[in-house]
C-alpha cells in the first residue's frame, strides 16, 4: 500500500526522474569512449574505467598540483591522453594484431588490473576534487528545476561528440577504415588498409574521449579510483542496451539505465540498485542481444 502511495507522490517521482537523468548522463558520457574503441577495433575494453580515471588524474595533476591555468591544463590533458593512447596501443595491443579476439579481451582485463594498481600506488584511494571553474552562466533555471553548469557542459559535449563521430564514421576515409578493421581484420589487411595505423589512431582517439569524459565525471562526483573503475564496468549494461556500435544508443542506454537505477533505489530497495543494471543486462542478452540500435550480425558460412 505504501508503495502505491509513494508512486502517486508526484514530487518524489520528479525528483527521482531528475536524479536518474543526471546519473544516466554520467553513464552515457562514460560509455562514449567505450563505443569508440569497439566501433573502430571491435575490442571489448575491460580497462575502460581505468582509462577514464587516468584522464581525470592527468587533469588533476596539471590543474591542482602544478597549478596551471584551467584551459592550458585541459589542453595538456588532451595531448597527454592522446599520446598515452598511442603508447598503450604500441606497447600492449600491437603485438596482438592478427591474434584471436579472446586474447585481446583477456589483455584488457590484465591492463585494467595493472592500471588500477598503478593509480592506487601513485594517488591512493582517496577522493579528490577539482576547483570549481565552470562559468556560472551555464546554469539553466526553469521554474523549480535548477540544472547545474556541469550537466549543461556535459550535454553540449555529448551533442558535439554525437555529431562529430557520426560524420567521422560515416564519411571520412579514416572512419571507414576503422569500421572495416572492426568488421574483419584479415579482409581489411588484404585490401590494403593500414591496420596498425588504424589501431593506433583508434586507441589514441578513444583515450582522448575517455579523458574528456573522465574530467567531466570528476567535476560531477569527484575522482576516486575505486568509484571510477566500478563505473567502467557499469558501461557494459549501458552499451549492451543501446547496441555496441551506436553512440546515440550509448546515450539513450545510459539514460535508461540511470533512471532505472534511481527508481529501483527509490521504490524498491537501495541495495538492489547496484545490481539492477546487470539483471537487465542478462535479460537483454537473452531477448535482444544486439541492443536497441546495434548492428545485427548475420553469419554466412
Amino acid at each position, binding site marked *: 500500500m505504501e508503495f502505491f502511495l509513494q508512486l502517486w507522490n508526484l514530487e518524489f517521482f520528479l525528483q527521482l526522474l531528475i536524479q536518474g537523468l543526471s546519473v544516466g548522463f554520467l553513464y552515457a558520457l562514460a560509455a562514449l569512449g567505450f563505443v569508440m574503441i569497439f566501433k573502430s577495433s571491435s575490442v571489448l575494453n575491460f580497462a575502460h574505467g581505468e582509462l577514464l580515471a587516468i584522464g581525470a588524474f592527468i587533469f588533476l595533476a596539471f590543474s591542482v598540483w602544478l597549478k596551471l591555468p584551467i584551459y592550458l591544463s585541459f589542453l595538456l590533458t588532451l595531448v597527454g591522453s592522446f599520446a598515452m593512447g598511442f603508447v598503450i596501443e604500441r606497447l600492449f595491443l600491437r603485438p*596482438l594484431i592478427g591474434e584471436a*579476439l*579472446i586474447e585481446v579481451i583477456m*589483455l584488457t582485463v590484465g591492463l*585494467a588490473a595493472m592500471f588500477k*594498481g598503478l593509480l592506487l600506488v601513485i594517488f591512493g584511494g582517496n577522493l579528490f576534487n577539482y576547483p570549481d571553474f565552470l562559468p556560472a552562466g551555464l546554469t539553466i533555471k526553469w521554474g523549480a528545476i535548477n540544472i547545474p553548469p556541469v550537466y549543461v557542459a556535459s550535454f553540449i559535449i555529448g551533442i558535439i561528440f554525437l555529431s562529430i563521430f557520426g560524420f567521422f564514421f560515416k564519411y571520412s576515409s579514416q572512419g571507414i577504415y576503422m569500421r572495416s578493421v572492426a568488421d574483419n581484420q584479415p579482409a581489411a589487411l588484404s585490401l590494403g588498409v593500414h591496420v596498425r595505423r588504424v589501431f593506433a589512431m583508434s586507441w589514441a582517439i578513444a583515450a582522448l574521449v575517455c579523458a574528456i569524459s573522465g574530467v567531466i565525471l570528476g567535476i560531477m562526483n569527484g575522482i576516486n579510483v575505486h568509484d571510477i573503475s566500478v563505473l567502467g564496468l557499469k558501461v557494459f549494461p549501458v552499451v549492451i542496451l543501446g547496441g555496441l556500435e551506436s553512440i546515440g544508443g550509448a546515450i539513450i542506454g545510459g539514460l535508461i539505465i540511470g533512471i532505472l537505477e534511481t527508481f529501483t533505489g527509490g521504490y524498491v530497495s537501495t541495495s*538492489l540498485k547496484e*545490481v539492477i543494471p*546487470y539483471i537487465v543486462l542478462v535479460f537483454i542478452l537473452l531477448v535482444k*542481444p544486439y541492443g536497441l540500435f546495434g548492428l545485427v550480425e548475420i553469419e554466412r558460412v
Partner: protein
Amino acid sequence: MRKLKLHPCGKFNEQYEEELTIFSTDFGRLWMWVGLFLLFVVIPFICKPYLLYVINHIGMAAIAAIGLNILIGYTGQISLGHGAFFGVGAYAAAILATRVGFPFWLSVISAGVITAFVGVVFGIPSVRLKHLYLTIATLAGQFILQYLFVSWESLTKGPEGIMLPRASLFGLDVKGDRAFYYVIFVCFVILAWVAVNLIRTRFGRAFIAIRDNDRAAEGMGIPIFKYKLISFAISSFYAGFAGGLAAYYIGSITPEPYTLGLSVEYIAMIIIGGLGSIPGAVFGAIFITALNEILSQATQFFMNIEGLAKIALTIAPLREFVFGLAIVFFIIFEPKGLAEVWRIIRSGFRLWPFSY
C-alpha cells in the same frame, strides 16, 4: 615383459591410440609415481605448518583453475564469474552443513553439484551469444551472485557470515593442516585425473572442436549448445567443489572474498599457467598463490619496521598491478604460458647436446 618405451627424439605416432596415450613413455609414468610419492609421503612430513597451509591453498586454487581451464582453455568460452562460482560452492557447503546437517563429504560434493546448476543458468545466454557477449553475461552473473551473497540474508546471513562445523571423514576428525592436506590432495589427484581423461573422450574432443571453430563443429554434427552447457557445468562443478573445501578449511565464510578480483585472479592463473593445459592450470595456481603469499608476507614485514609502514600500504595495490602485469606479459610474450616454458626446458634436456 614388454619393451620399455623411452624418449624418442620426436613424436612419431603411427596409430591413433598412441596419440591418445597420457604417458608417451614409461619414463613419464615412472615420474608420475615419484611425484605421487613426494606428494603424499614426503611433503606432508618435511613441511612446516605454515608451508602446508600455503600448499593447501595452492591445491584448492588448482582444482578451481583446472575447472576454469576446461571452460576457457578447452571450450573457448571466457567466464568472468569464476570467483562467484567459487563463492556459490563455499556458501552451498556451509548452508548444507549448518541447516541440513550434511556430513563433510556429502556437503562438499553437493556444493559442486549445486554450483554446476548455477553455472548452467549463467551459461544459457550462450545459446545465442558468441564469446564477446557471453563474457559480458558472465560478468553480470558475477555481480548478481555477489549481490545475493550479501542480500539474501535468510539464507546466507549476509555480511555476518556463517561458521562451519568441524569436518569429519569416516569417523575421523579432520583437523589441522596435515589432515586437510590429505583430503585436499586426494581430491585434487582424482579431479585432475578425471580432467585429463575427460579431454580424451568424446566430450573433450567436442569442446576442442567448438573452441577452434564453432561453425565447423556444428557442421560436423556436434550440438554446440549442449556441449557448451556441459562445459559450463563441469567447470562450475570444479569451482564449487574447491569452494566447498575452502569453506571447511577456513572454518567460516563471509561474502567479501568472492569478488571480481578473485575471478581475475583465476583468469590470471590459467593464462600464466597455459590455456588448454591441465598441468598449466596447476602451475598457474602455484605461481599466483605463491605470489599472493609473498606479497602479503612483504606487507607484514614492512609493517613491523618503524618508518617503513608507508611502503607496506603501497604494497596492497601493488598486488593488483603485479597480477595485471603478469597477465599482460604472458599474453604478449608466452601465450601458451608456463606449461610451454616447462615443455621447452624438458625438451632442452632431452635433446641435450643438440638442443635448440
